């Protein structure tokens, strides 16, 4: 890992500098992590809950971060897990499967005051919501965030080959669904 990252991580672990370093961390990564989470949970209020929990988890667990991966990768992984746990918890409280819960969210997007997309954007979100969970995550990271397979592989702890297969399955399904609609 880079020296600058190590210095920053040490500052995050040191009780004297922890708060200031954490403030810098939040300032630097809040938007990127927020948008990643938002694409998974779709709703702003839900994304707000998840991003706050994510940063608190990062704060509480930074001492256990061994720098086997980049700091951002580690944080992305926490954010992804938090978003999935959130969906799981919300869905189970309503007696729904995760997939049904997220599809319902996607269906209601046009009524969301913080969604500015047109019909085509809404349709794309609805189709993406119908993907199996793993494919949906991979598709979001690859298509919307433009991340490399290598980076995604580190975050979701899967081989690049498996990811590529997953992404291409997702793209194929989306194309088929969109073609059927038009």
């Amino acid at each position, binding site marked *: 890992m880079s020296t600058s990252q190590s210095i920053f991580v040490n500052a995050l672990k040191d009780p*004297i500098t*922890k*708060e200031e370093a954490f403030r810098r961390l*939040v300032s630097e990564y*809040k938007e990127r992590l927020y948008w990643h989470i938002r*694409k998974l949970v779709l709703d702003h209020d839900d994304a707000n809950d998840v991003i*706050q929990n994510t940063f*608190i988890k990062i704060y509480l667990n930074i001492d256990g971060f061994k720098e086997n991966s980049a700091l951002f990768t580690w944080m992305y992984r926490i954010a992804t897990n938090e978003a999935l746990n959130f969906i799981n918890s919300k869905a189970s409280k309503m007696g729904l499967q995760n997939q049904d819960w997220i599809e319902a969210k996607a269906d209601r997007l046009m009524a969301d005051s913080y*969604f500015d997309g047109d019909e085509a954007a809404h349709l794309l979100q609805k189709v993406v919501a119908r993907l199996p969970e793993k494919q949906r995550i991979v598709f979001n990271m690859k298509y919307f965030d*433009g991340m490399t397979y290598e980076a995604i592989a580190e975050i979701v702890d899967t081989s690049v080959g498996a990811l590529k297969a997953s992404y291409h399955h997702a793209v194929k399904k989306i194309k088929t669904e969109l073609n059927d609609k038009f």
Partner: protein
Amino acid sequence: MTNFNRKNYFRVPKGYFEKLEKRLIRNSKSSSNKLDFNVPSGYFDTLEEAVVRKARLLTPPKTQERKATALYYFAGIAASLTLVFNLIQYQQNQVIEIEDQALNDYIESYYMDNLDSYEMLSMMEDAEIELLSDFSNKP
């Protein structure tokens, strides 16, 4: 019809169109993200404050503060011990003998006369107050 493209005198840097395509796709993706999803005005500023505030609540007192607090405790204990020791020494040198019962009576009468019921209650244990209320409820 004249083919204007037959001879092209203009050139572009090597790999330009591949890079251009990637750049255009990247830009369109990032702009479409921002167009599709939105957040309340000033949200990211308030988010930062909210997160830092929550984290602060989870932070134990700083090590240095803890060390300083411990130092004050020890200094306090040392001072108390010195005071007690000096008092004992002083008392041993006194020849005045005061009868315990007389002293207690004096203190009790002096303080009880000047205390209101809330102040008295504040000095009592819960069980004592409970007992007191049992007596007062009896006809």
